[in-house]
């Protein structure tokens, strides 16, 4: 659990002191529900995933916000509470920074892509897509980046994919146990163990 | 006209043994140069170079030769057999043939040709054929592209080379290499033709495809150039033999026609041993200069290479010929040669400097503490 509650907008008062960028956001987009919280270095704003394209476009283009620099886009897996996409933004002109988060459910992990807004979001989204299984709609080239191009059904950074010790190395079994990780890439079926029907995948 | 003494009565036997001497000399020189290059470049790069094979690594060239001879001779199955096997020789044989026309001392050379300089220039342009045939015969598109680039570079740089040498022969009034050396007398031609010397040296470095002009070999599509498919002794014929033989031959020519050869400072007085020392010292200093340039400069890009040749060197060479012609026709004294040629060289240097001049370092923004 993070210290941002999911019941965004239902809190009576923000713990964020006035005069921060959260107020500017509310001013620019009065009809969007923001749940603000102070983070260790930035203000954290929680929004609904449908608002993501509007909010982020306004963040870049509105002169009061002017977040021309998107520093980082991460995916986080919160288990039953869903996946989360975190955008870290910074403005060189106003010298303020913000972290915008949007939760998406595990069963339907789609969210709008911000690559049309910042070209620098391209590879971050590809990486989040392959590591978490998030589908970024509108991304120009949704091909796995760090993982092999054909590994589209296995998402290593999810919490339900455990980190297992390597027991297979180039087809030679090293340990007595083989843990089924649920995915065998095409062509590696011969590594599958006899009883469980699963096999090792080696290091992710 | 000087005569070279005959050591044997039979002309053929005499020629044969002279050729043999030159051949042995060439092989020795190539071995020495491979070693010297590695040591010199190593020292410039603050490392020692070969040290293990023999004391101070002097047996390194022998080790290299043995390794190269024992390598597997690979030939692509689809390569044109005749072209593939002929190419290294097409490149190497002319490089050796030029040594036939060079007078090593006043009285010794393989042959004195009255058109020695012309022979030299003509034959030294032949290795281009070897490059093209190598590229074509390899059945590899990258080799072909590399060959085209090498050919373009070599042919382009022949033109200012020939013109600079021609300008010099206008001064000497002869194409006979012995005459040119003797005409220099007390003052070597480099003093009268600094511009010509600059053009000559640049074209020599380019003809050897050494840095800064080694674009063809090093970066043709980021692969090795026209000789990619060659290995073992074939490759070594090209790389070691041709390159070092050409280097030796071209720097010999440079020291003969520009630096006074075996004659200056006191060649004719002191005898053949002094002449040999002189000529080899001058050749060695030119070779060391070329190696120094190789170790220090970055590579020039292909289009910059061509632009440099056609837009700078060629007009300069024509200017040199024109100046020489003017001075000879009007019979002006020799020092006008130095003046005009030196001035043209200074102008050329300034042009190069000015087009690439850096306007200074980047601006810095000072930040004080506590700000």
């Amino acid at each position: 659990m993070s210290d941002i509650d999911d019941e965004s907008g239902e809190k009576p008062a923000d713990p964020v002191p006035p005069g921060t960028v959260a107020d500017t956001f509310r001013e620019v987009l009065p009809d969007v529900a923001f749940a603000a919280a102070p983070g260790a270095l930035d203000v954290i704003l929680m929004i609904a995933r449908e608002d993501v394209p509007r909010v982020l476009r306004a963040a870049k283009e509105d002169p009061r916000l002017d977040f021309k620099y998107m520093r980082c886009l991460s995916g986080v897996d919160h288990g039953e509470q869903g996946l989360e996409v975190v955008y870290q933004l910074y403005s060189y002109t106003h010298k303020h920074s913000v972290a915008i988060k949007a939760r998406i459910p595990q069963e339907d992990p789609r969210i709008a892509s911000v690559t049309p807004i910042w070209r620098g979001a391209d590879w971050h989204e590809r990486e989040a897509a392959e590591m978490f299984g998030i589908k970024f709609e509108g991304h120009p080239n949704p091909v796995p980046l760090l993982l092999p191009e054909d590994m589209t059904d296995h998402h290593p950074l999810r919490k339900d994919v455990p980190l297992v010790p390597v027991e297979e190395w180039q087809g030679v079994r090293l340990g007595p146990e083989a843990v089924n990780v649920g995915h065998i890439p095409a062509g590696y079926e011969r590594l599958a163990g006899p009883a469980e029907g699963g096999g090792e995948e080696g290091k992710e | 006209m000087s005569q070279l003494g005959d050591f044997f009565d039979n002309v053929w036997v005499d020629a044969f043994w002279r050729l043999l001497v030159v051949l042995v000399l060439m092989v020795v020189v190539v071995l020495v140069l491979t070693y010297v290059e590695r040591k010199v470049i190593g020292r410039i790069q603050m490392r020692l170079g070969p040290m293990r094979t023999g004391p101070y690594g002097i047996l390194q060239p022998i080790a290299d030769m043995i390794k190269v001879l024992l390598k597997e001779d690979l030939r692509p199955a689809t390569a044109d057999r005749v072209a593939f096997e002929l190419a290294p020789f097409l490149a190497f044989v002319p490089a050796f043939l030029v040594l036939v026309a060079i007078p090593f001392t006043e009285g010794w050379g393989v042959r004195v040709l009255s058109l020695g300089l012309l022979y030299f220039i003509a034959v030294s342009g032949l290795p281009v054929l070897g490059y093209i045939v190598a590229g074509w015969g390899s059945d590899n598109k990258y080799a072909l592209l590399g060959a085209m680039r090498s050919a373009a570079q070599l042919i382009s740089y022949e033109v200012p080379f020939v013109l600079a040498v021609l300008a010099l022969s206008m001064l000497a009034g002869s194409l006979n290499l012995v005459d040119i050396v003797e005409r220099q007398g007390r003052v070597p031609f480099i003093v009268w033709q600094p511009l010509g010397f600059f053009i000559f040296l640049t074209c020599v470095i380019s003809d050897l495809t050494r840095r800064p002009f080694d674009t063809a070999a090093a970066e043709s599509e980021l692969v090795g150039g026209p000789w990619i498919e060659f290995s073992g002794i074939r490759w070594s014929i090209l790389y070691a033999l041709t390159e070092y033989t050409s280097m030796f031959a071209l720097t010999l020519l440079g020291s003969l026609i520009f630096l006074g050869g075996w004659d200056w400072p006191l060649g004719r007085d002191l005898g053949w041993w002094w002449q040999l020392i002189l000529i080899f010292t001058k050749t060695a200093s030119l070779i060391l200069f070329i190696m120094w340039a190789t170790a220090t400069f970055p590579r020039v890009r292909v289009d910059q290479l061509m632009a440099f040749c056609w837009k700078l060197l060629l007009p300069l060479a024509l200017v040199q010929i024109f100046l020489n012609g003017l001075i000879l026709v009007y019979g002006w004294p020799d020092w006008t040669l130095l003046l005009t040629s030196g001035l043209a060289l200074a102008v050329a240097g300034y042009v190069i400097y000015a087009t690439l001049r850096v306007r200074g370092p980047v601006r810095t923004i000072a930040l004080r503490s506590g700000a």
Partner: protein
Amino acid sequence: MVVEEERDLETIDIHVNVGPQHPATHGVFRMVLTVSGEKVVDVVPHIGYMHRGAEKLSENMDYRQALIYQDRTEYLAQFNAEMCYVMAVEKLAGIEVPERAEYIRVILAELNRITSHYMFVGAFATDLGVYGTIFTYAFREREYIQELFESVSGDRMMYGYFRPGGVVWDVSADFKERVRWLCKQTRVGINDIERLLTRNEIFVARCRDIGAIAAEDAIDYGLSGPMLRASGVPVDLRREEPYSIYDRFDFDIPVGERGDVYDRYLVRMEEMRQSVRIVEQALEQMPEGPVLPEKLPRRLRPPLGEVYMRTENPRGEYGIYLVSKGGEKPYRLKIRSSCFCNLMALKEMVVGHYVADAVIILGSVDIVLGEVDR
């Protein structure tokens, strides 16, 4: 009547594959250039050859153990990466760092910036074809600093010297003298290399106006560090969002004009000099004292929270996004690596130039594949 016939010249674009084994020393990186004649019309970079799952592995280690992945990720500027990570943990856990440790960290981080830029100059000159002369000079200078790092941390490459709260042990008694000597020697070393390269006509001709990127595009792509400063944006995170004790030092930020390869080279060389300045000032100000706080918990359990800590690494902005759910291990550790973001702009910079320039532009981005792929 003259009938003009238009004949279409059929040209085929060639795909040139550069990598994954590179002639230049950048690591396993592959780019597929589509070349029409001599000019590049498209670049597709392929990364991931060095992906080792540092983020996933860090989730399974506790906070002290996860530090080692920072070294292995950014293996040319290790102290800078470690610094970012330990500061992220300190911000979450609320740990105060003693003064002496802060100064030691800054000195080592700046010296590491210098070694990283030496490595850049060596590799970059080799890309250009200088065939190793600059490389050996740069590595000789770098070796002096490496010896200091080895004496401080015990390791030549994977230091693991910083800890959340400070540094693991104090430096030796001759540290100050050695660093003073290093500052003098580094100035000489930088001058040696600059004398050989900066005004060399061939170098300038190869690097001027190659791979230029405008300031707005640079910000849009998320570039940072020397690449951003070379494009004219005067931003340095050590001043923009000061962290650690950087606001106590005077130093300049070099800013370029055109964002081409030459400006990036000049910016990095000047940064080395500024780092020497910082180190000298830090040496003057460094107090005695402990290097770890007395009350450091044996098991670090930062409270619930998250932080995005960013520092100015030699290659740009290095960020650690750390989410803690109160356990001993990080819940999510995302590494925002500078080269990963800088590489995104590769296509923009390379298209329209020659093939030979593509190698130079890649060299000027100064990538570390460990950081790109993690």
